[in-house]
């Protein structure tokens, strides 16, 4: 049946309108504003991050566990990286959500793709946040050759 319909229409008909319910929320509006605001903020955050890590001081050769631990000892860089993580993840996830809405034609596909997207978002954000606040450059019981020089024992 489906095959017959497809053969009969040379240019595929668009998704037939499912019941377009008025949601009466400003969800899409806030999403639109957030994308612009976070985009501007991310420009500053990311280029600041890149400059601090790759250019300032010894540049890229200075990066090791110790460098990261040193940065995260300061609340400024904790907040900076946390903001960067959250904004980038929400910004990116919302963008991909929009693309899925555009291109996934079947409701089932849409649900599956979006579930996978939100799962990936949650895992990344939770893991990232955890690392920022609990980072330990000298985990006990690790092989000595993998640890930075300042770790004792």
């Amino acid at each position: 049946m489906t095959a017959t319909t497809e053969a009969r229409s040379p240019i595929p008909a668009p998704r037939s309108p499912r019941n377009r319910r008025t949601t009466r929320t400003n969800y899409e509006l806030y999403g639109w504003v957030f994308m612009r605001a976070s985009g501007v903020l991310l420009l500053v955050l990311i280029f600041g991050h890149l400059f601090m890590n790759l250019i300032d001081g010894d540049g890229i050769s200075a990066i090791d566990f110790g460098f990261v631990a040193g940065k995260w000892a300061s609340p400024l860089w904790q907040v900076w990286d946390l903001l960067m993580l959250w904004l980038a993840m929400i910004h990116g996830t919302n963008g991909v959500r929009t693309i899925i809405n555009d291109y996934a034609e079947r409701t089932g596909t849409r649900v599956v793709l979006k579930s996978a997207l939100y799962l990936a978002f949650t895992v990344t954000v939770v893991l990232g946040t955890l690392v920022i606040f609990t980072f330990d450059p000298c985990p006990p019981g690790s092989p000595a050759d993998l640890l930075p020089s300042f770790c004792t024992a």
Partner: protein
Amino acid sequence: MTTVLETTGHATPEPAAEVGAIPSFDVTLRIRRFLPDTPEAEAYWEEFTVTAHGTDRVLDAMHKVKWEVDGSLTFRRSCAHGICGSDAMRINGRNRLACKTLLKDLDIKKPITIEPIKGLPVIKDLVVDMEPFFASYREIMPFLITNGNEPTRERRQSAEQRERYDDTTKCILCAACTSSCPVFWTDGQYFGPAAIVNAHRFIFDSRDEGAAQRLEILNDREGVWRCRTVFNCTEACPRGIEVTKAIQEVKRAMITRAF
């Protein structure tokens, strides 16, 4: 009279063409056909070569095909003067009105491709089902909404107030904008540029009091926020409406309302 004298006065090197004669040339139309009644109905391309004049439009060449070559060629046209909005089609990959596209403006050395507008179900040849398009149009309530008693005289408006929404009054509902929108192609639930343009026409009308309701409808998930400012609609509009700008103005109205 003067012109004729001047022309004869100068020595013309080219072989004397008849004064006032319109040049004619052969033009090939490559038309996307779809005949639903044939056993295995499938769309295919068919080429027609007709002789056309320099003043002819694509519609004239199509008339020539329909009237003299193949009467089964099906397309919509009513006024044939760019006002009824019946003959929007995809000409050389761009949405145009066949009655407003002059053959001399196209590259006639190659066949001119003519397809039905995209994103709407094709019924036959170049005729598409416009119902989804008009359903969106109806949803934004394209009529004057007012409160209170009817005034005893006309509802007055200054020239400046009229100017505010002048651009969007030009819409002829030909669907060239909506069917050029990539978001509409993949998502038939998107209201589409034409519906938003016609909402804009009332939202910014000083006499109308239904702006809040219309903004509410277009604030929906399939409303203005699906617009990606691709500008295809502005490019396609045969009336020169700045469609994308109108959509952005509706977005701005929503943002100022929300904050």
